[in-house]
């Protein structure tokens, strides 16, 4: 059933500190999650830009990799508390708000488009500082006490099991993926204590301001507990470098700056080989995700032109994996 977003937001405005809302606009919608932008008006500080995230489809908390929006809201607050930049939580919606499972955050100014961040003239001055900033921010996120948060745990072996099962079920036979699964299984890094991970910390999920750098870390729904190197490495996967492959951190920076920033802000010592192991696992995971998206088209579940084309991105992860395996993991 179509939910009257505008009507419910109008009614909610007094609880958000205003008198009404304007410019309600849907930004994106996946199969199960919607994002809306709106402006709260009538509040004392003047008009305020806000973002509504709401679940529009079914959610199986036990099986899903995603957290609930309530957990996401708690994570945003916890991250803010440890000094990581976030879009501040305005409201975790209640059933009587009529918006379903949803939360509202402030909207932070900046750019999220990876291509603009790695190549845009406006970001030329800030780019060399971003890798260190990202390391510092990740160290803070990893200091969040996880006990009170409802998060799953994943380690390298668990991730290999999970993604290999998906790959096997797809019926695809791809030599580089076979090689990567076998090689990564045989070279697991020594365990480290679990920390709270963002889970999708990459260029594209970071709001970047041209003068101050990382203004907010977005999209917390894949947060879980695990190896700190997982978060550090995901930012380095070549698929998120937007053509600036020679700058391994997000297409804007160097490994050493990322690791230095992480150590400066109190992160545990992470070796480059550990990071590169997880980077390869990240490429492998993204390759399998691309296969899954193609499979969702092939099965008839998602008839779009976008899904099958993502299948043609598997080869990019295979080239990245061979490049990593050539120098050794």
């Amino acid at each position, binding site marked *: 059933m179509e939910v009257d977003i505008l009507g419910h937001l109008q009614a909610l405005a007094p609880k958000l500190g205003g008198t009404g809302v304007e410019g309600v606009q849907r930004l994106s919608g996946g199969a199960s999650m919607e994002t809306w932008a709106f402006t709260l008006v009538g509040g004392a500080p003047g008009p305020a830009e806000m973002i509504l995230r709401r679940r529009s489809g079914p959610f199986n908390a036990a099986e899903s990799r995603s957290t609930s929006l309530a957990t996401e809201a708690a994570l945003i607050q916890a991250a803010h508390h440890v000094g990581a930049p976030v879009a501040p939580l305005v409201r975790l919606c209640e059933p009587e708000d009529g918006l379903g499972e949803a939360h509202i955050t402030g909207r932070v100014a900046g750019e999220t488009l990876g291509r603009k961040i790695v190549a845009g003239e406006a970001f030329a001055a800030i780019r060399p500082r971003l890798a260190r900033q990202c390391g510092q921010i990740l160290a803070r996120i990893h200091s969040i006490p996880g006990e009170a948060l409802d998060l799953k745990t994943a380690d390298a072996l668990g991730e290999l099991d999970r993604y290999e099962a998906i790959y096997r079920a797809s019926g695809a*036979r791809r030599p580089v993926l076979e090689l990567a699964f076998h090689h990564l299984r045989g070279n697991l890094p020594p365990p480290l204590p679990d920390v709270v991970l963002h889970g999708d910390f990459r260029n594209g999920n970071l709001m970047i301001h041209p003068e101050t750098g990382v203004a907010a870390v977005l999209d917390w729904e894949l947060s879980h507990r695990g190896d700190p190197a997982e978060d550090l490495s995901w930012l380095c996967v070549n698929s998120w470098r937007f053509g600036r492959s020679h700058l391994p951190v997000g297409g804007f920076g160097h490994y050493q700056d990322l690791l230095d920033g992480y150590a400066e802000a109190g992160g545990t010592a992470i070796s480059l080989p550990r990071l590169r192991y997880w980077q390869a696992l990240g490429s492998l995971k993204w390759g399998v995700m691309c296969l899954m998206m193609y499979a969702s088209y092939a099965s008839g579940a998602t008839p779009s032109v976008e899904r099958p084309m993502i299948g043609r*991105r598997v080869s990019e992860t295979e080239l990245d994996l061979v490049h990593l395996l*050539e120098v050794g993991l």
Partner: protein
Amino acid sequence: MIEHPRAEELVEAVASWIESLRPSLPPRDAFLARVAANALATVGRELAQGPAADQATQARLVALLGHEGDLASLNADLCDRLETGEMGVHTPGLLATLKANIIDQIAIDQPNYVSQPGG
């Protein structure tokens, strides 16, 4: 021979028609139209380069595995050996073969993709 027009020309014609529509579309459809045009460009490259790429891949797999076969069975044999660990990163010629095969495929899938040697 089917050539008036050739398949490549049909693909090109549809892709440029989609491109001409794009500016008039709402954002979501404009995005999907770009994806559609990219899909056709991929088909165009595959028509032009696919047969030679498959042939080269097959020849490389024959050399690596030391026996003849069609591409699907050679690929399956290689996957089996990699899955069991009978072949791995230390197998002479393996990484070079895999790399050459992917480079041929990526030239069709995403010719502008940049992957730094060394990862």
